[in-house]
């Protein structure tokens, strides 16, 4: 203490004090300040901007108050997760009627998507956007995820997530490129033909296990060419055309006379 007291008139003392004061203020602010606007804690401004975006881009089909119409469902209570899934994958806004909304380059950036999601979430309670930890593939158990995927998802999306056909032009998309967050949201909200897998039927941890399993499948097959992982069609075609073709070629060469 004596040493400190002796140096209180040092010419650098005010500078040190100022630095300490700044550090304390900054630390307290960081600890206590509201977190930046996200879908969970959306500011009123976000909701208002979101509403304007909604009126301009979505209200034609979904109605001015998102109450739905004969062509589009009501969005009251679908939650932020549903909006984030549909808009961030470019499925919404739809450009034309079709068997199903297809993935395309997104029309709204991250911030606008969050604002739209905030507006729709303000209309009624629904699933929120998952946190990064909930969708982190490094934290899941891929063996359990595989068992869950085979029971609940593989019939439409193929055993390794290569996708497959449904009826009348609809299809279950391939999951190779889908982000973990979008996979989670799709399970939670059941977009279009897909059924809902809510947190009671597949718990958040189980959803993360499924994400881990799917991300692992992206490394391809240890056995070599996966041929699209489509099963007997592509594999059979390969064997009959390429395999038998090579064998026939070899047989012709062996049987031909040397010139």
């Amino acid at each position, binding site marked *: 203490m004596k040493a400190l007291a002796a140096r209180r008139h040092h010419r650098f003392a005010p500078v040190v004090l100022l630095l300490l004061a700044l550090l304390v203020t900054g630390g307290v602010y960081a600890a206590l300040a509201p977190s930046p606007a996200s879908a969970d804690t959306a500011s009123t401004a976000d909701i208002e901007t979101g509403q304007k975006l909604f009126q301009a881009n979505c209200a034609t089909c979904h109605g001015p108050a998102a109450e739905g119409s004969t062509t589009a469902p009501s969005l009251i209570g679908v939650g932020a997760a549903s909006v984030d899934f549909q808009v961030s994958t470019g499925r919404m806004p739809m450009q034309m009627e079709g068997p199903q909304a297809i993935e395309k380059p997104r029309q709204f950036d991250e911030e606008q998507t969050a604002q739209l999601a905030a507006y729709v979430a303000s209309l009624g309670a629904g699933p929120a956007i998952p946190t990064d930890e909930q969708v982190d593939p490094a934290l899941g158990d891929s063996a359990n995820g595989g*068992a*869950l995927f085979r*029971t*609940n998802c593989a*019939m*439409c999306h193929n055993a390794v997530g290569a996708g*497959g056909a*449904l*009826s009348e032009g*609809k299809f*279950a998309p391939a999951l190779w490129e889908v982000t973990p967050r979008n996979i989670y949201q799709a399970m939670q909200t*059941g977009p*279009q*033909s*897909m*059924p*809902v*897998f*809510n947190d*009671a*039927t597949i718990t958040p941890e*189980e959803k993360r296990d499924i994400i881990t399993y799917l991300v*692992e499948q992206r*490394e*391809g*097959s*240890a*056995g*070599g060419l996966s041929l699209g992982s489509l099963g007997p069609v592509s594999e059979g075609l390969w064997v009959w055309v390429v395999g038998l073709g090579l064998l026939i070629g070899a047989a012709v*060469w*062996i049987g031909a*006379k*040397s*010139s």
Partner: protein
Amino acid sequence: MSDHQHSSEVGTTSSNAPGAELERFDDPGLPEHKSRMADRDPKAAKRAERQIVVLFAISVIGTIASLIVYFAVPPGETTASVRLSTLALGLGMAFALLGIGVGAVHWAKTLMSDHEHVDERHEQRSSEEVRAEAVKALTDGAQDSGIGRRGVLKGAVISALALFPLTIAVPLIGSVGGDWNVSKFRHTRWERGMRLAIDPSGRPIKAADVTIGSAVHVIPDVSEEERLSHAWITEKAKAVVLLVRLDPRELKEAEDRVGWSYDGIVAYSKICTHVGCPVALYEQQTHHLLCPCHQSTFDVADGAKVVFGPAKRPLPQLPITVDDEGYLIAQDDFDEPVGPSYWERLK
């Protein structure tokens, strides 16, 4: 018409007198022998020899490469490293074997002797003497054994020979199908008051957990011990159920089935009535349930009626309700056998 008659006449004559018609064609004989380039030109022979040496050298290099790969590129832990290791090993072995095979064939084709010789096919029928001799040997043998005179012996040997195949046939036929008790097709593990549990975790399901648009794959809530037993897979294969919740206004229920659903939640057998594949592709918006094998389509909102495909009967419905704690339970077993038809189904 006349052409046809003519050709049928030709057919008759040729079948009556074999060879008569064939006289018209000259035997073209063997094609002229062409000498190979390697036979005519020593340079070409030298070249072919070099090619063969190169092919065998490729084989040697392939063998050495695969040995090096075995030590230098271990499979490792990741999918990519396993793939790389097996690919490199396989390529090495392919070149090692193909080098030998292609080299040997090329050697035989270009350098080994090129004589052509003709092997005449001998007649299949033996000469009369040989045939008579064979018959004589057989009759002599039969006379020598005295089988014609000793009736008991004849009976004994025939019985022994005739009975022996039973040792193979009886176990073979006995193991076909294994179990002929078809009455168990009629029942599943479901019983009154049994809770519905989630496949594969085995958690029981509350009615409140199933939101509209949900699809849940369901198994009977049995003990953990039973779920790990050997017999469970057979029971599960019959008892699997798909549970979905629809808006109750969209649900059409037959008069005799009112009360089989609970607040828009319906449960149907997941075994297709066509040939028994698991029907599980559920389209939430159309309420259609598709079978992946032959595209049979069932309308879940309307008693799982067949709307498309080869299935002939709707999926059997599991009558459900809730217990005091809010868990979904079965009211009873299915009221009809699940899965495809079999002969005794309606008895």
